């Protein structure tokens, strides 16, 4: 069989993604926001009830990212992946280890009602609803690169609020050094729990300064819509300078602690997965080199991996003086 191979740079992105439509729609909304919507704002977007109603219907209204900010992304170098790609190719082992399994199996997950238990070193512990933790009037859109430890990457327009804004609501105590996220375990709705080879619940965590960093997002949506279940509905974190497994999905518990939490992948295989898991081209995964990555739906590992996934200007200072070979 003879196959003519094109480099991924030649792939007709414009044909496979509604990127340009999405962008132009957003530009339109920005222009509109300056004018006409100003009138509407009071009546439609103003009341929290209206915003939540829209969210119930699956639509989210978010402030677009400022051009030139790290939240905006680079449309030339990093065009958006399509909604279809983002929602059909997922790692969510609770629904099976195949990349297509979550999209097939997560539909049966019920995300309403949803309660998040907040405990540990906080002034306001308790059980919170999603709307109690996330201010739906303050939603922001963030175009983030998502780099998986398996060497593939995508570009995703998430919607959410900074994690710091969520934490501000529960008021961490000064002694709190780490925050951990525990994700849902519900055997009646999750078919992959028995066969994934991981311990449940899935736990991931961050150092406090990482959690408070403006890049760290508590996401509730993507592409203008409420998060699909396979992408971690109703509430997930996204930490764009770390490998994807750090970004826990369908969070049911947030704990603030003084000591470093035992995180799932580091427990499962500490040689391969560390607590920090910063994207780093110079530290190999024992089974593969991390020097290059494959930007889906490209065919080749033809992109040099960027230190901190390209967010070094923003986050490198968090790790000043640390040996990142040791703290991988």
């Amino acid at each position, binding site marked *: *069989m003879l*196959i*003519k*191979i*094109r480099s991924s740079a030649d*792939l*007709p992105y414009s*044909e*496979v993604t509604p990127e340009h439509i999405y962008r132009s729609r957003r530009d339109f909304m920005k222009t509109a926001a300056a004018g006409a919507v100003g009138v509407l704002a009071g009546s439609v977007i103003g009341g929290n009830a209206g915003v939540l109603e829209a969210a119930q219907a699956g639509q989210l209204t978010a402030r677009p990212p400022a051009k030139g900010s790290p939240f905006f992304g680079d449309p030339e170098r990093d065009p958006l*992946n399509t909604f*279809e*790609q983002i929602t*059909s*190719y997922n790692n969510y*082992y609770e629904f099976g*280890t*195949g*990349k*297509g399994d979550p999209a097939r199996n997560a539909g049966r997950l019920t995300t309403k009602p949803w309660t998040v238990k907040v405990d540990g070193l906080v002034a306001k512990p308790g059980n919170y609803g999603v709307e109690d933790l996330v201010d739906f009037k303050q939603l922001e859109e963030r175009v983030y690169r998502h780099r998986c430890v*398996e060497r*593939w990457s*995508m570009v995703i327009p998430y919607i959410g609020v900074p994690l710091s804004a969520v934490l501000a609501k529960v008021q961490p105590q000064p002694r709190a050094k780490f925050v951990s996220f525990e994700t849902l375990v519900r055997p009646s709705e999750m078919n992959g729990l028995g*066969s*994934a*080879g*991981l311990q449940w619940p899935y736990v991931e965590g961050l150092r406090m300064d990482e959690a408070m960093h403006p890049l760290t997002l508590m996401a509730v949506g993507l592409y203008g819509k409420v998060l699909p279940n396979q992408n971690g509905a109703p509430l997930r974190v996204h930490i764009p300078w770390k490998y994807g497994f750090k970004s826990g999905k369908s969070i049911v518990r947030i704990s603030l602690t003084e000591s470093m939490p035992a995180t799932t992948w580091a427990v*499962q*295989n500490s040689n391969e997965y560390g607590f920090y898991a910063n994207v780093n081209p110079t530290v190999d995964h*024992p*089974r*593969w*080199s991390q020097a290059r990555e*494959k930007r*889906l*739906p490209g*065919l*080749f*590992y*033809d992109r040099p991996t960027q230190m901190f996934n390209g967010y070094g200007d923003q986050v490198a200072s968090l790790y000043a003086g640390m040996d990142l070979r040791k703290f991988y």
Partner: protein
Amino acid sequence: MRAAWRAIGAAIAAIVNWRFFKPAVFILCALPLVLVGYEFAQVVTGRNPDALGADPSKALLEELGEKGITILLATLTVTPIRRIFNVNRIQRVRRMLGVWSFSYIAIHLSAYLVFDQACYSAATCDYHAIWQDVLKRPYIFMGSIGFVILLALAITSTQGWTRRLKKNWARLHSLVYVAALAGVIHFIWIQKSGVARPLPWIIWLAVVMGIRFYYATRKRLAAPRSTVTA
């Protein structure tokens, strides 16, 4: 129970003795390759970019590897079926299955070289990096062992080589079990966690090796060495 057993045997015999059994097996082996090749061609030409999902080159690589190990284990299942159900004519598809499994694994390896190692031209191919990968990554090392064995077996699968190697041919070709074991271990080692995905192949290999072991020990206990080869 015995009647049911006999019915299964009769059904297998009927299938095996079917006039078009061998062509049917051939088509069955070719089908996944044609399908995935067609889908991949659709991706590359841009006619249907989503034909193989968001990560087409990985989907291609996995499909080739999975079908390769499947046909390899099917090859190892021929002799047990022949012995258990006394259907000697099934033997006539064994070599064909073996060569098909080699073909899938060879294309699987090529896909790895082209897509994972960028060996689509001499200029982009870093032979040193590939060699380093083979030595540094146990699952690639294991897969390479399996491939080298299958290559030797595929080359010596012709009647000429069977004649030339005489008794050693059977000895050499019993390495197919090592190749299958290497393939299954390769499959296990590439998993990020757990063995749920390769589990059916692990069980399958254990069963055919168990049967092989059973006949080998029985033969040794029952009679002086016969010239029957597996």
